[in-house]
């Protein structure tokens, strides 16, 4: 970035003064490096990697299925001898495999509901921010109104009204969580829209759709990525909330929330039924929060919280 002007080519100490150029770095590379320096985020990423791998591949490697009842070993504490490393519950189901299988559901809901949230939020926010004016005001007023409502209650209502179908869970949770994303995207779009390079594109006659596609959306990616990472734990939390209340995924599918609910019933006599799913759930949420925080710091160091 600093270039030195030599006095003249044949000058005796042009050599002494010569300096190399510092190579430039793209914004993304910069952000990536900053993220890697954040130890908490890196460790969290590693832990999440382990969790995801064990959740995806673990149940395939274990000798039991999640709903297999081992009548010889009901309510046994964790032990290597019985092969039930996390113990069993009251009807003899292996806690380890149930935890991992439950993880699949929790993470799946997390991912899909977040994508639903993303789709709705980004579209809504980008449209509001881009068109601005009255459209923006009306749309954001709508967001304000909905934001003020106790949406957990609506989700519960939805679950009760329409039954506990897993697709409905994706949609319901996603539909309830898009508000923050919409607000952020709208704010970002508004400031992008007013930046010079968009004005320049308009001056060259590029039409609205192309501008949105080529200029606005790539620049939204950063902010969107941060909020996706922060939405996933929120969504997982909502799902486990519902499951805890008995309104989540239907049997025989189970999620961490449902497992915690089951475990809480027996926590005095068989605390391991509570502890293992609870730990997995907590660790996942914890790590996602750190990763999201790290990404937010990496993409905009001035935004530190």
């Amino acid at each position, binding site marked *: 970035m600093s270039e030195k002007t030599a006095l003249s080519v044949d000058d005796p100490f042009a050599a002494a003064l010569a300096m190399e150029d510092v190579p430039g770095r793209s914004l993304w590379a910069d952000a990536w490096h900053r993220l890697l320096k954040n130890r908490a985020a890196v460790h969290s990423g590693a832990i999440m990697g382990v969790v995801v791998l064990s959740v995806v591949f673990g149940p395939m490697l274990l000798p039991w299925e999640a709903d297999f009842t081992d009548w010889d070993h009901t309510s046994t504490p964790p032990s290597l001898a019985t092969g039930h490393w996390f113990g069993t519950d009251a009807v003899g189901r292996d806690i380890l495999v149930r935890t991992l299988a439950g993880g699949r559901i929790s993470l799946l809901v997390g991912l899909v509901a977040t994508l639903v949230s993303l789709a709705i939020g980004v579209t809504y926010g980008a449209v509001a921010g881009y068109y601005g004016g009255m459209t923006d005001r009306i749309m954001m007023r709508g967001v304000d109104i909905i934001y003020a409502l*106790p949406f957990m209650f609506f989700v519960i209502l939805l679950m*009760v009204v329409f039954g506990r179908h897993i697709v409905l869970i994706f949609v319901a949770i996603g539909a309830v969580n898009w508000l923050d994303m919409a607000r952020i995207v709208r704010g970002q779009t508004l400031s992008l829209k007013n930046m010079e390079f968009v004005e320049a594109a308009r001056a060259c006659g590029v039409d609205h759709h192309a501008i949105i596609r080529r200029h606005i959306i790539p620049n939204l990616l950063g902010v969107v990525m941060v909020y996706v990472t922060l939405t996933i734990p929120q969504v997982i939390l909502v799902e486990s909330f519902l499951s805890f209340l008995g309104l989540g995924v239907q049997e025989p599918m189970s999620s961490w929330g449902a497992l915690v609910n089951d475990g809480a019933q027996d926590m*005095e006599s068989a605390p391991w039924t509570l502890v293992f799913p609870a730990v997995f759930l907590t660790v996942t949420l914890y790590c996602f929060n750190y990763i999201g925080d790290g990404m937010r710091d990496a993409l905009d160091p001035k935004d530190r919280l």
Partner: protein
Amino acid sequence: MKQEGILRHTGTRFLGLIPTLLVLITIAFFLIRIAPGGPFDSEKVLPPEIRANLDAKYHLDEPLLQQYFRYLGQIMSGDFGPSFQYKDWSVNELIGRGFPVSATLGGLAMLLAFVVGTLIGIAAALRQNTAVDYSVMGVAMLGISIPNFVVAPLLILGLAVYAGWLPAGGWDWSWQRMVLPVITLALPVIAYIARLMRGSMIEVLHSNYIRTARAKGLPEHVVIRRHALKPAILPVISYMGPAMAALITGSVVIERIYSIPGLGSYFVQGALNRDYTLVMGVVIFYGVVIIVLNFIVDLLYAGLNPRIRYDEAQ
């Protein structure tokens, strides 16, 4: 000049509440009516005449739109109607029983969260990047991440069952029974406020006007108390609205775990039993509570931040 600004500000905000309320009522109404199956389906099968009588009594045989306007009219006069589930009770009475409990729980939790969260956040900010700061923030992150239905059983196990210091649940307005639920409910909000306060305070402490205050030769504690505290706490005040909504949401689970007869419990029961009027009533009631509380927080914020008043008056 300034007074006009405040009045206009209050007035605008107040008027803005009405559409919100309307939307709330409408969504809740149509949502629960869309449900297949009515309120009496889950009970024993009733002979058709009795069924028809019941439907007529509760106006369920009228067209949906008519029921809606009838209901709207009822709400305006403050009557939420009779409960379908608890036959001898009206929804108003049920809310009257449950709300004081939930309000006490929520109010104490909010107070605890605000006081503790703010203090922790300020302490961490003043010791930025020290061991104290990192450990406190790590714990705060944990507080945000652990769901309250995980904390509650653990607390109950530890403090009630094994140590026997506190009762494990129930509600009789004694302080012992309040301790665990209030703490469990407040925990995530304490954590969030702590992080928020810390970040805000750090940012304020780096601002130019704090540098000016120091250059004036004022002692550091005066600089913090008089110059830094008010600007730093503004984001926390803003957060109070969503915080209360979060507490209301959390109370649903807390009341369940600790067997507390609050409004959240009634709601869940009502939802499971298709008690239309009760569910609607609770949703609308809580909605109104949240809206009013948000309004108060807005006013508080405007009171503290002179720039808002100025902008509105323009």
